[in-house]
């Protein structure tokens, strides 16, 4: 599946296209399918996302979405060396999802 990601213009936070807007949580990302280019162009023009792009991802058994490349998994969670600064600071297994 193709999912869309980018950064929030004001905060720089990593965001994911959830079908209606941009979410901080990759779990909410949806398959953009053949509409990826149109969505990115529209959202970029409206300054709702910065530096947006499409990536390959796989749906997981638990319903989560896992980006194919480690770079995007690190973007999705946060720096592996500062678990306290990630989106899931209390989840001891969050790091293994990235690696």
């Amino acid at each position: 599946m193709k999912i869309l990601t980018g950064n929030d213009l004001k905060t720089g936070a990593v965001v994911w296209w959830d079908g209606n807007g941009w979410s901080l949580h990759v779990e909410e990302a949806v398959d953009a399918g053949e509409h990826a280019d149109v969505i990115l162009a529209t959202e970029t023009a409206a300054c709702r996302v910065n530096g947006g792009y499409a990536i390959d991802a796989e749906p997981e058994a638990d319903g989560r979405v896992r980006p194919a490349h480690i770079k995007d998994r690190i973007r999705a969670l946060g720096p592996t060396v500062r678990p306290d600064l990630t989106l899931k600071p209390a989840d001891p297994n969050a790091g293994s999802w990235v690696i």
Partner: protein
Amino acid sequence: MYKYDQYDQAMVDARVEEFRDQTRRRIEGHLTDDQFKPLRLKNGLYLQLHAYMLRVAIPYGTLDSRQMRKLAHIARTYDRGYGHFTTRQNIQYNWIKLDEAPDILAELATVEMHAIQTSGESIRNISADQYAGAAADEICDPRPWAELIRQATTFHPEFSYLPRKFKIAVIATPEDRAALRWHDCALRIVHNEKGEEGFEVYAGGGMGRTPFIAYLIRDFCPAKHIFSYIQAILRVWNLHARRDNIHKQRMKILVHDLGEEEFRRQVEEQFQHFLTLGTDFPQAEYDRIAAYFTPPPFETGLSDEIDRSDPDFALWVDRQVVAHKAPGYAIANISLKPISGIPGDISAEQMELVADLAEKYSFDELRATHVQNLVLPHVRKQDLYTIWQALDAAGLANVNLDLVTDIIACPGLDYCTLANARSIPVAQKIAERFADMDRQLDVGELKIKISGCINACGHHHAAHIGILGVDRKGTENYQLLLGGSGAEDTSQAKITGPGFDEAGIVDAVERTIERYRELREPGERFLDTYRRVGMDPFKEAIYG
């Protein structure tokens, strides 16, 4: 240290307001990302993996306590409570918000700091010996020259749209602590046989995907003409640079393509031209700038004795404290490399402590090093124990200067959009493997440097043991390199062979070090042994 005059302050303040307006227009949608990107980069603002990143310039690595406290304030107020010292003597913040960036720049301007030319195709922060003004072996303080060059090149029209970035370093000692010959242009202050001051000039160095060690292109340029010579170098590059290919735009490529002799010939030709233009620094301007770097009022009659009765303190002194030019004084190195820590990272609270120590014990001066550590440059030996106690209480009394755990590591894939692999976890695992103090001391001087991509921000080419992270079919892979040096015995590290995964690279480093311990002769550092025996014995140990 240098203090802004009314013109400096006016320029920096105006730049802040200009960027505030540019940022507003971007947020309101009047500028596209493509239009805004070069504007933010000219102000040191990158967009990294998780947020905007702001790189703040620390000219020649010199700071005072007021500036360090401001850096702490910014870390606490606008970031997540910490900063990261870089291999260019700068500091980076990793969690910046775009709409707050102008406010941060305004805060920096109140303490005579900025982020101008910390990115983009410009002359980057001019680096220098972190012991400048304090080193026992220096000819003079190189920082007045660094400041003069900084002022003359900032906003200079010919240097504002260079083919690519351009890095300059200035030192005044035989020992090279600034990775001189890995710079586009490097200057070492020397005296000629008549006792006149001038510069050895090196050109064409650089790391990245195509590493080159700079050539000595002039063994003596009279000090009064150094700006003409620098302009000549930049003019030749500007005339011939490959602006059509981003991978060939750095000056090192041009120097390599033209060849040392032809490059030198063209520079000399341009030099003669610039000499006719009268653009060198007037003596009065040098004197004005040099006055800011007058040595502090060192006390006389101080004892050189240090009470070493506390063994932990004695260990720290032996490793972290080096000779100062003034009797009774010392240079104290503060390691930002705790075992399991992140190389170069420092919390706001630690910054404030270091600022307090600098203000109280080091004539209000601090230095950032290209090895991602800090320095208190002018401390009385009799104050060392008090300083050490304060550092120890703050987790800053690590003992590892130039040892196996004093690792340079770029931010890597944990933070950087360019990276292919993570650097920091590898540094942490190596440091943990060699955490034992006796083992570190037994191994001796060993400089490990890790880059998460070919851009080489972690200086892996200049490492005794270098590690380069690469992307191999979507997974992190690490190449091992041996035999580099960023010191006066400059050399380029060579790849050992096939790469490793994260666990494998740590094992490979350990096997390399153990083979060195087997092979070394008395007094040999790792690098000495490598140069004597070559790569093969190490490859055998690494790959079997």
